């Protein structure tokens, strides 16, 4: 199974001279040639598409998750922390996105259990382009690309925002991921290359750019994902 | 200098009479009442008086002459439609247009510029060929041309449109023209007025009397009138008027916006339309770029402007003409477009005897002004649909016999 998966951004990343690292069977960029030190502190755009992820929707979805010990957010468009640094995001009312952090195995464990056939619990195949935005000028990138006032969102409210960013449907939330405060972004994988190109282009103008996992998350331990 | 201007210099008083009288009160009875003193209403009045001798006619207008879509459109005139009905109809219109200034003795600045509908996809190329073939079949000057022809007519254009929408071809319609929109209403208004038609501005219709399925009169803010014939030519206000006679129609109202730049020296001769980029543009005689895009996305009976309209249109304009970055947009505005499911108008007789409809003009009413006047006046005078508008009768919907102009008008112009 090793390296059978590829990121929606594989083609784009390959042009940036990456050093690859395997994340749950998907090569992601650990480092990029031009990712100079400090870029991720200013404004980094990092591909996290490889993280194990599972989606479920339907009137029975919340109960199904709860029965498996997953902390279910009780309000629409909020998220809770998952053991191991992942998230459980409630998308609108009855749909959930469960994603493992670098230290988690929950989404990976849920995936095979989620089979069609249970009324009211419907699997949602997740093939996201998943990003992390890091650094001090992230907000400038957000206000140039999205008409939502993210800066005013209270951190402890754990808000999930489903919105359009440069014309693409995205899910956005802010979390401390692998020890780092960042904005997380998910979109359909087929829109990923466009979103990536647009965000990294603007980020470059703002003194940042694409970054590898090791510079975005220097404190993270990646070995248990391989 | 033309001799017509000499008299201005040598007259002690401005030698021009009123173009239209301002009758103090409504008469009790008219042979026909036309609602709406826009181009269509006034053209109908003009031809009713001139061609059919019906002069005891009142044109009622809640605002002022030409203040609706006549004065808000981007003045493009063409006849390269998709359906036989459409082509024949608009071809007649263009023929009338070409002599209208002389007919009125009023310069409408009718300027033949050539009209290109750009195709950026192979399916658009197919549609353009379809239109060209239908046009040629009916003798309308229209052809499918390659990108090099576009470049010849507008050498400044970026033929790749910013690299993401390359122009693969275009439907070229040499007779495509623009005109001074307000003057069209004034010309028809003056001509109708001179022939005895009364134009009542600031006169709003409150109701239409119908007895036994027949029109008998009109109630207005300035009194009641009895009349056996009412023609509604009110574009975006059509549903309000049809509601007065209990008529249901497929018409729905969406705003259509436009914008104009500051004047610049002439550089763009043809009229360019791009369906993919949602742009149509021409340069007016004053040097402004007059631009429009697609319909607003939802129903609204108001002429408010939106910022996203100018943003989107400006972005697409720069795709085509990157050097316009420094040009400035001066003004934006909107009209209310009366849309139909098949993008063709609704004209002629209705189930209510004596109630005639000239509606569903969506985004293409201006170009039809003369022929609408011609055919609607004939229809009102004769009580049955003129040959050219038979395909546009309201009844086509319940017969499921729609007129498929949708392909031709997807961008509005």
């Amino acid at each position, binding site marked *: 199974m090793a390296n059978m998966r590829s990121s929606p951004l594989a083609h784009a990343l390959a042009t940036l001279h990456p050093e690859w690292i395997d994340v749950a069977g998907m090569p992601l960029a650990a480092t990029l040639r031009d990712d100079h030190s400090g870029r991720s502190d200013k404004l980094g755009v990092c591909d996290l598409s490889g993280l194990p992820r599972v989606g479920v929707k339907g009137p029975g979805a919340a109960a199904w998750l709860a029965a498996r010990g997953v902390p279910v957010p009780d309000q629409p468009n909020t998220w809770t922390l998952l053991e191991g640094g992942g998230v459980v995001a409630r998308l609108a009312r009855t749909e959930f996105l469960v994603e493992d952090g670098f230290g988690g195995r929950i989404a990976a464990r849920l995936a095979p259990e989620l089979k069609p056939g249970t009324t009211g619990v419907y699997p949602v195949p997740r093939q996201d382009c998943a990003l992390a935005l890091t650094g001090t000028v992230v907000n400038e990138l957000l206000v140039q690309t999205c008409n939502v006032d993210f800066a005013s969102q209270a951190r402890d409210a754990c808000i999930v925002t489903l919105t359009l960013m440069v014309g693409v449907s995205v899910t956005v939330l802010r979390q401390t991921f692998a020890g780092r405060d960042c904005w997380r972004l998910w979109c359909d*994988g087929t829109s990923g290359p466009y979103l990536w190109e647009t965000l990294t282009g603007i980020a470059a103008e703002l003194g940042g750019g694409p970054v590898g996992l090791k510079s975005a998350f220097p404190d993270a331990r990646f070995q248990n994902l391989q | 200098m*033309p001799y017509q*201007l000499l008299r201005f210099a040598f007259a002690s008083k401005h030698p021009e009479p009123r173009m239209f009288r301002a009758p103090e009160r409504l008469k009790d009875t008219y042979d026909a009442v036309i609602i709406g003193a826009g181009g269509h209403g006034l053209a109908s009045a003009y031809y009713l008086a001139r061609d059919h001798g019906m002069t005891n006619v009142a044109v009622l207008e809640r605002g002022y002459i030409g203040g609706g879509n006549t004065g808000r459109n981007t003045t493009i005139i063409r006849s390269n439609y998709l359906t036989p009905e459409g082509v024949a109809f608009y071809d007649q219109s263009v023929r009338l247009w070409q002599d209208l200034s002389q007919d009125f003795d009023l310069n409408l600045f009718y300027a033949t510029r050539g009209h290109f509908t750009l195709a950026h996809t192979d399916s658009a190329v197919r549609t353009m060929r379809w239109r060209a073939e239908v046009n040629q079949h009916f003798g309308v000057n229209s052809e499918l041309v390659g990108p090099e022809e576009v470049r010849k007519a507008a050498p400044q254009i970026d033929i790749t449109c910013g690299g993401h929408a390359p122009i693969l071809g275009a439907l070229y319609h040499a007779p495509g023209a623009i005109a001074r929109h307000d003057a069209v209403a004034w010309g028809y208004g003056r001509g109708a007025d001179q022939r005895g038609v009364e134009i009542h501005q600031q006169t709003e219709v409150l109701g239409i009397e119908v007895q036994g399925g027949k029109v008998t009169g009109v109630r207005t803010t300035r009194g009641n009138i009895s009349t056996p014939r009412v023609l509604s030519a009110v574009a975006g206000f059509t549903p309000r008027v049809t509601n007065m006679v209990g008529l249901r129609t497929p018409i729905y109202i969406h705003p259509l916006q436009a914008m104009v730049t*500051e004047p610049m020296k002439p550089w763009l001769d043809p009229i360019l339309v791009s369906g993919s980029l949602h742009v149509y543009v021409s340069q007016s005689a004053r040097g402004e770029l007059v631009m429009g895009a697609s319909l607003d996305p939802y129903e609204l009976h108001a002429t408010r*402007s939106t910022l996203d309209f100018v*943003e989107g249109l400006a972005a697409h304009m720069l795709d085509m003409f990157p050097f316009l*970055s420094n040009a400035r947009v001066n003004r934006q505005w909107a009209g209310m477009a009366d849309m139909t499911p098949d993008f063709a108008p609704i004209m002629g007789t209705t189930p209510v005897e004596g109630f005639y409809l000239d509606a569903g003009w969506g985004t293409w009413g201006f170009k039809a002004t003369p022929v609408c006047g011609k055919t609607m006046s004939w229809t009102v005078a004769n009580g049955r649909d003129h040959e050219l508008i038979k395909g546009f009768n309201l009844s086509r919907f319940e017969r499921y016999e729609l007129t498929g102009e949708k392909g031709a008008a997807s961008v509005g112009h």
Partner: protein
Amino acid sequence: MSSRLPPVTGEWIDRSRGLDFTFDGKAYRGWVGDTPASALWAAGVHVLGRSFKYHRPRGVLSMANHDVNTMMQTGARLNLRADVEPLEAAMALTSVNTAGGASGDRLRFLNALGGFLPVGFYYKAFHRPKALFPFWERVFRRMTGLGTLDFNAPHIRTPKRYDFCDVLVVGAGPSGLHAALAAGRAGAKVVLVDENARIGGSLGYQRGGSVEGLEMLRDLERDLAELPNVSVRAATLAAGYYADHWIPLVDAKRMTKLRARAVICAGGVFEQPAVFRNNDVPGVMLASAAQRLLYRYAVKPMDKAVVLTANADGYRAALDLMAHGVAIAAVADLRAEGEPSALTMRVKQVGIPVLKGHCVLEAEAVDDRLVAATLCPVSAEGRPDTASPQKFACDGLLMSVGWAPAAALLYQAGASMRYDAGVHQFVPERLPEGVFACGRVNGVYTLDSKCEDGERAGTEAARLLGFDVPARNFSVAAERVAPSHPWPIVDHPAGKNFVDFDEDLHLRDFHNAAQEGFDNIELLKRYTTVGMGPSQGKHSNMNAIRILARIRGKSPGEVGTTTARPFFHPVPMSHLAGRGFNVHRETPLHGRHDGLGAVWMQAGVWLRPEYYGQPGKRKADIVREEARAVRESVGIIDVGTLGKMELYGPDAGAFLERVYTAKFAGMKPGTTRYAVMLDESGVVIDDGVVARLADQHFYFTTTTTGSTTVYRELQRWNAQWNLEVGIVNATGAFAAMNLAGPKARAVLRKLTTLDLSNEAFPYLALREADVAGVPARLMRVGFVGELGYEIHVPADRAGHLWDALMDAGGEYAIRPFGVEAQRLLRLEKGHIIIGQDTDGLTQPDEAGLEWAVKMDKAFFVGQRSVDIVRKRGPRQKLVGFELDAIGASTAPRECHLVVRNGAIAGRVTSIAWSDTLGKHVGLAFVAPDMTEVGSPFFIRADGGTMVQARVVPTPFYDAEGLRQKVVD
């Protein structure tokens, strides 16, 4: 000779940084902080431009962004407003719309032809003889237009941004500053903008010889700086007001789209010109323009001035001028009673004659510069008494006769305005929720009152938004004396008393227009074009209203105003366009296609390979080769752009039966079925394949362009039906590729343990299995007419599978094929493409889809309409045809017409040369009575050539369908 003054307190120029520039070819020097107009005026240049119609010389009028007669150009930057545009080093400025520069303009002879060119003259001539009009049009076009485009100018991409605040204050004069302070102190997040290079408004330049205002400004700046929640943005234009407090803020670099929760309009007023003969000659200017020259740019506007006034501001301006060494020849006050305040005394004390009840009858120019003004008594009605005019030599004339509100944003917000005869100005009457006005736009002029009014607005806005501010009673005193004169207009038999400087309209034009029947404000505007020039009526609309009111015997309030549409000042296209985003989607195989030389085409938001290019080979040949590979061996195409939907739940079958025309409830798991979707009028809108994976689990495809709308509509139907189903749009989650050709099975067999035999996995069946280690859904399809497997896999494993298939296919010379080859292959098979072989009105029966429409179901979308249309019968039918003669040169193309007896009888929807069949085949709509197999018909090809075709049955290729069922 320089008229630059010694340093003036509060000046905006930086005398340490000089800027060299040229104007009409001559070199000048200004300072950072100057505008072209201020620098040129300082250098003694007074003809800064020419008027639009008569090419009269024009100088400074407002210094406030209305001086459109002094528009300039430098390089690619056109139509720069010389009165406000920041001067930059090395600008090579030229005056727009002149022949040979502003001072030597060869078109100035037009001024003498004014009599021939009354209002609307162009409607009255040039159309006869008709043949000459194009010539005249060219002349007109050359004469009009302002700046000149540089076609080599680059595409400027400016980043736009969004911003959010509680209270936006537009205008940083005394009232706006106080409003911002009040709202800010209440805790609101405030944005304060001002279009001027620096904040302060009238505090900075309407000084009346005192520094009091300037000191107040310094205090306010300091107070605001202490509030971190207040953002002060100078040189920032609030360009318009859009729904729900959505305001574009435009600065030199970008447009910021600000969402405010409340908006305070403190935009002040525009000073209005007086109308008298030659009120446009260089040297005649608004009093505020002279004050701006003095205090912003330290430029002495003139040496000797006549001040025409009708308010206290004129007297203050006179004091300002005197304080900087300008001699005042006289003050003419239109009001018989003069100025009631102490200002009169202050002016008289220094020996300036004050002529009460006097007007300027005319101004006089020599060599394009004011040399004298003739004053005479004027009656209360505005009639000049010309019996004993007095002439004053002067090189400057100040007009201080009144103001008009800068209320464009208020109008756009939906405010209603009323004419207040107390101030002779339109003031807000009713404001929409969350919109406030204060200061002069609100009819409040006295400095203390403006401050109070600003504080009131700021406090009210904060309170509305729920900030905890104690309610207070504000008392803003009414003005005791009107700051505007109701009739600052003087007729003159020789005219040239301008009302609109943009459009060169003088008083008589308005009378003439009204005489012709254009006597309501909208018609007057359209006929005269008053207010339609680049300054959008800022200095002309109010006088036009006053003139029309007098003509009609009405009050200005009864005449009303015209709509003030965006923009407040023109906005560059680059700012509006921003970066220009172009959304597109890519399948996960995009990189692979690129590597294989794909030539891309757009398919909705997607990019798809049209074919795979090879150096030196023509497209047509490549497409044929790709098709041949499929027919003879094996090919592979990325079909991942198809819409892909998962449908779960006990009612899934019932749901599909309602949205598609076929039956699905009885489908066995492991099978697929073709599906057609109609709209409510019975028109074919989409098609695809429905596969049943399990009792409660279907998986189906839609067309590439239809996926988003189909998914959306399915969701909507279910929001109404409330069936127990879950719909998931899995378009992006699955990749899909079609492996097709006689060797497809052989290739696939290498990668899967699934029994691929025809018995175990027959045509139209569905199987789930691992292929190359990837969990896959495989469907036996026949779109291209060969043995074919459409393989759907999770998107992240698409690349792996593609590589494996290409590897495995190597020995069979597997060939990737693009959309173009697929179109040919499917045509040979007679399969239609929705949108190409159908159009916006096609009913299923017309497209030969009767077989797929099951009328014996309880309900499906469009069913009832099909029922109705069937009674009428089809208007046309889609048939297969082949050309009788072989010859590519005359072959018709798609959308060529079928012609019968000279009438249109249909059209070609698809046509191609088929190598396989050795002939042209196609699909065409024809009249219903032309469908008999074997019957000939004619197609009109390019150049009018009539080409004979013959109706043939479809499929053209492999009619028995043996190829797609081939057993190895």
